[in-house]
């Protein structure tokens, strides 16, 4: 097997995941939050595929495909929510959308 070792891939994966997590935590625009979530998921995907190649086992790639499908549907729902929020002329700010507070 040629190319960089699995550790490099994991490093990039962790970097992507961390970036995404930071975005989710600090940004207040729901669209950006969704975007950050996508980055987190793709970080995870990268790790799955890296391990898949490392272990010569196709299962990880299938998982990655499943994650992509989940991510796509999640974006559908998320963007649908954003559109619904916008239609009601509410602020696009996750901190002010706290109706579920106990």
């Amino acid at each position: 097997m040629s190319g960089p070792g699995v550790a490099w891939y994991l490093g990039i994966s962790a970097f992507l995941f961390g970036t995404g997590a930071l975005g989710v935590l600090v940004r207040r625009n729901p669209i950006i939050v969704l975007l950050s979530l996508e980055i987190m998921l793709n970080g995870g995907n990268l790790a799955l595929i890296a391990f898949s190649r490392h272990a010569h086992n196709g299962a990880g790639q299938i998982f990655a495909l499943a994650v992509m499908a989940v991510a796509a549907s999640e974006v559908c729902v998320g963007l649908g929510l954003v559109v619904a929020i916008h239609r009601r002329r509410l602020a696009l700010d996750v901190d002010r959308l706290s109706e579920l507070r106990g």
Partner: protein
Amino acid sequence: MRNGAWICLFAPLVGTVLIVLGGTRISRRAAAWVSTISVFTAFGGALWAFFALRSSDARAGITYSAWTWLQSGGFKVGLSVLVDPLSTMMMLIVAGVGGLIVLYSIGYMDGDDEERRYFAYMSLFVFSMLLLVQGGNLLLLLAGWGLVGLSSYLLIGFWHERPSAVAAAKKAFVMNAIGDATMALAFFVLIFHSNSLEFGTSFDTAQHLSPLAVNLVALGLLGGAAAKSAQIPLHTWLPDAMEGPTPVSALIHAATMVTAGVYLIARTHPIFEQARTVELVAAGMGALTLLVAGLIALVQTDIKRVIAYSTMSQIGYMFLGAGVGAYANGMFHLMTHAFFKALLFMAAGLVIHALSGEQDIRKMRGIGVLMPWTRWAFLAGGLALVGLPPFSGFFSKDSIIAAALHDHWYGVVLAGAGLVGAFLTGLYTFRLYFIVFPGEPSAFAREHHHAHHGKEGPLTMLVPVGVLAVLAVIGGWIQFSPFWHPLTNWLAPVSATLAVAEPTNTQEAIASVLAVLLGLAGVGVAWAIYGRGEVAVPRLPAVQRTLEHKLYFDEAYDALFYRPAAAFAAWLRRDFEEPVILATGPDLGEGALELGQGASRLQTGLLRTYVLFLGTGLAIVGIVFLVVR
């Protein structure tokens, strides 16, 4: 044979399902005909099975299994039907008489608000009863047994806006549940010893059981039989069950369901023969019931209740016959009784129908003038009930008394009870007849009687009554011991009569002559007191009051079971419910409320708090993994 049996079993169920699914989309009349046709289809299936069995070599019966119904370890029960002489005979009676009665119901229930429900229940009942008699093992028999109790409950309480009907239905259900429970206990003993509820295996097992076990099994079965067949001490529900519509009384509480106990004894006789004492107890129970019910019937004033007590009394005869070992005689009386008792109920139903629901015999005097055909039909049924030749009751009842006569001193006592019962039967039957039918119509009868287009009832009611009147007259001719006994021979492969219950010809003759004479005496006394009015009704206030209170059975059960239970419940409420449960309840509730409010503060509605919790949880799990590893 197989197809006939399955058609017979499932046709009525199909009828029920059709009526239920049809709902209001089919007319009431259509629902009635669906039910009638389904039951007559069952009768066709029964005929098929009967003739196939007659011409086959397997006279002892064949069990057909559809599939394994339930399995638990080595214990296995199949969904199977048994076609043998005993079950085909019951199939013919249940589906045949049942079909006639459902047909009769079309006229009787015409105009009722809930006819569809009624006919769905009727078909369900016939299905349950057929399951009971056709079931290929004891568990299916018990399933049919329970379903029969359920449909009886539904039909007694059919007029559910009447509190008395609801109470009667409940009472019947509870009494029957006692019997179901003892039967289930008996089955547990059998399963414990043989791990099977197949008829053959159970009967073989009974041969090797300890006397205690086999007596317990027989007692449990007897408890079930007594409850279903309204024998003392579990009889109090039957008279109250007359709250149901009259065709229900004719079908369930005269012709079929209440005779299930007799069928059970005939079916499981190998077990009872191993516990001969219990079997003789059954005979004694029957003798006691036939006397007590005959006495109580003397003072009743409700036309249906008189016939109900007479039913109890006649089932007493059947128990007596089956108990001494003359199973075929018991079954023979079951058959003739189904004919003439259904006839009596339906003739009474014609009167009740024509008088707009009136059931008090004192108001009906002279109705025979207005309804001559009903009068003749009732007379035929009454004569068959008293057992005068050549009516059907003569052939079946006398052979039971003769069979009892053969069995030592105990048998003589039983036969004596049967003979006294014959006198009482004549007396109460013709008291009813003389009060209701002959003479000048009373003012009430004239005023309330309304003819149906110049007839005594709709055609759907008159045809079944006519058919049953013919059967009540000639139905007994198929067997005349000691000259010919095709029925005994037919049943011999499954329920052979015991040697001790084979009377000699002299005994047959003595029993017949005495029973007929005593029956005639009863009719004569009834005629003297009620027909001519020559002799005053004997005034014995104490006796009359006792009989009118049905020997205080209801009061005794009330004091023995109901009141202690009610007192216990009241004590529980006063000393446990109120101080303990009601006192701690609010505290518990408030505590839970506070806890919930505290927990709800964690729900901030802010995404980042949730992510924080998630991260914290993840970190804890990670640390735990690292540390524990």
